[in-house]
Structures are given as structure tokens and as C-alpha cells.
């Protein structure tokens, strides 16, 4: 194995965490990680050694997620919202290990954010990337990233406050 493979293996826990933050179900997150790995292997010639593999892989994951979200939007016109809601609730319950109530509330609140804000929050708050790195992954100017982050956070604090969770 070589450095690329090693780094990609070591990146798996972070890729999965990012996927779980942007997807609404654990099964979707697993699919997203798997597709990201496949695409990273197929496109490895496009990775420039010496640059950050994490940013590169996150960018691949973000693109796949956006494609899925578009396809999902088309589906949601034919799937009744009630069905979708039931499926989500069941899955969330299953994936909620032993987190504290406030962490669980935040997890749900993050998953309810609009896509753009959720990605910004996942990259900066959950993964800890810098604004510049997160903006590059999202393919937007730094100012756009910052405003998504501000709005996302304001919304999270409001949501948690409304639920009586102090954050």
C-alpha cells in the first residue's frame, strides 16, 4: 500500500462523521462514505500529492451529497411526506448510541438545517476545519461560508433554546 491508501484509510472515521452530520440517516451516511471511497479511488490521479487529502475527499463527498440531494428532491415530489418522516424517526432512534440529551437535541437540530448551513456547520463545528478550508471544500467564497455559518448557528441556538436546552 502507499501513502494515498494509508491516508484514506486513516481518514475513514472523519469521513463517516462528516457523512453522519450531513445525512439524515445512518444508512444514507454509510452509502455516502462508500461512494466517496469509490470515487476517490477512481479519481486518484486527480489528487495532487503534497496537498490535503482530507479537503480533497470532503469535496468529493460534498459533491456526491449534493447530487443525492437533487435526486432526493425529485423523489420527494412523488413520495408522501408522512412516509418519509416515519422512516427518518425510526432510523434516528436506532443510531442514537448513548449521547447526552443536549447532544442528541443538537444532532437533530443540525440535521434539520438547510443543506448549505448544515454543510458549513459540519465542516467547521463538527470537523474543525478553518473557514478557508471549509470554503474551499464547499466551493464558495469565504464570505458566503461565513454567512452560512452565522445563520446556521443562530438557528441552532434558537432551536435548542426553544426546546429548553441551554447551549
Amino acid at each position, binding site marked *: *500500500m*502507499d501513502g*494515498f*491508501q*494509508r491516508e*484514506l*484509510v*486513516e481518514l*475513514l*472515521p*472523519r469521513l*463517516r*462523521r462528516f457523512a*453522519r*452530520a450531513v445525512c439524515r440517516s445512518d444508512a444514507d451516511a*454509510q452509502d455516502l*462514505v*462508500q461512494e466517496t*471511497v*469509490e470515487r476517490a*479511488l477512481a479519481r*486518484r490521479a486527480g489528487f495532487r500529492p503534497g496537498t490535503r487529502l482530507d479537503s480533497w475527499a470532503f469535496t468529493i463527498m460534498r459533491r456526491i451529497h449534493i447530487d443525492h440531494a437533487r435526486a432526493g428532491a425529485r423523489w420527494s415530489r412523488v413520495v408522501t411526506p408522512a412516509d418519509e418522516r416515519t422512516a427518518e424517526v425510526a432510523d434516528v432512534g436506532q443510531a442514537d448510541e448513548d*449521547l*447526552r440529551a*443536549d*447532544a*442528541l437535541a*443538537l*444532532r437533530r437540530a*443540525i440535521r434539520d438545517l438547510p443543506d448549505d448551513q448544515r454543510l458549513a*456547520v*459540519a465542516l*467547521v*463545528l*463538527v470537523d*474543525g476545519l*478553518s*473557514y478557508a478550508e471549509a470554503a474551499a471544500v464547499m466551493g464558495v467564497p469565504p464570505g458566503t461560508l*461565513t*454567512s452560512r*455559518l*452565522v445563520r446556521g*448557528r*443562530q438557528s*441552532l*441556538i434558537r432551536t*435548542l433554546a426553544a426546546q429548553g436546552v*441551554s*447551549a
Partner: protein
Amino acid sequence: MNRLDDEILMRRVDGELPPDEAAAVDAAAAADPGTAARLDALRRLRGLAREAFPATADPRDAALAARILAGAPARTTDWTGWLRSALAPRLAPVWAASAAAAFVLGLAFGQLGGRDEGFALAPDGGIADVGLVRVLDRRLAAQGPDAAGRAVGLSFRDAEGRWCRTFAAGDDGVAGLACREADGWRLEALAPFAASTGEVRTASADTPAPVLAAVDALIAGETLDAAAEARARDAGWR
């Protein structure tokens, strides 16, 4: 004074302000409880977000790792160092499922192909290293390591009736568990191993925790004592 906007407080919490501006925000927070409370809420949100989505190892990562290792046919001989870092405590749970680990590592070692010496595995997880096979076949625990630092530790039967033995390949820096099948020794677990430098050593005391965990998972009954070990060896591990 100005009410600081959310963005600058957020930048402060995320470490995105130059030191002088960060100090100015801190001074403003010290002077105004309202600002301090907002800053505090942002900080707690950041901490809580990391808690809400921990970066934990997932059993499904082992299959993905296998896919990655199989996916790009590049070669390197510097695999013991890689193994050590991949099996570091941080990622240990990923590899703890011994069968999955053997699968992953079997693929990895299979790519080493033409190496003449040192530890080697067939792509299916069978042990292909002639020296190690000889040690597993013939050596007794009491004999300690051979000239290449290879030693066996515990011997036992698993629930399927296979003979299994823990081993250390000191010079290669790995220790593991192998079980005897009709066509040879099959690797069940592998972990980085640092040979102790003390004069008195027992192979089992040196056995890394992941290998011992694999023993616990497989063993049916007790480990063999020296006499039973010698009898099993003389019977060819059948």
C-alpha cells in the same frame, strides 16, 4: 460601546481572529455580561457539536479499508511501519474484528508478491512465509524465539476443532494468531509487536491485546500445557 455582531463573536470562538482582535473581543466580554453570555453560548455550541458527532471507529470501516487497499495496486515494502500506525490505539477498534483484519491485511500482504523473505501472507489470509509456517508446525512455546525472533505462545483448539497458535515474528514486528486448516495456517488476527528486551520472557505475556482478544473469541476449552502441545505437534496438528 458597540454591540459586537454574531460574526465577530463566532470568529473569536472558532479561532479565526488575529490575536489583537481576539483580545479586543475578550475585553468587551469582560466588560459586558451580555456579550460574555453570547460568547459562552457559542463556545458551548461548538463543544456540543463535536460531542453530537464523535469520530468513532465503525465496524464497517474494515470493509472499506479492504476496498481501499485492493483498489490501487501500488506497492511498498515499508508495511510494518504502516501497520503499526494503522493499528495505533486511536484506530484499534477498526481492526479489532479479527476476521476482518485478516482479510484486510491478507490483501495488503498479497501485494508484496515477490518478496523472498520476511513475513508474507497469501491473498486469502493463508500464511505463505515458509519460516513462519515451519515455526507454527514444529516449534514449542518453551523453546522461545528462533534466530529470526519467531516464537509461538499459546496453543489451543477452537470451536470448529481447529488447532490455533499465537505467534510472534519479532524481527518483522508483528504478532498474531493462526489456525490450522487442511491447506495450511490461516491468519486470524495480527497486531504490531515489540519484542521485549528482558532476558526472561514468556510469549503469552508479550502477546498484544488484539491477539489475546482473538484468542478469547475463538478458544474452546483451555490452552494446551507443554505435554499436550508436544503431542499435538507430533500428530501434525490434525
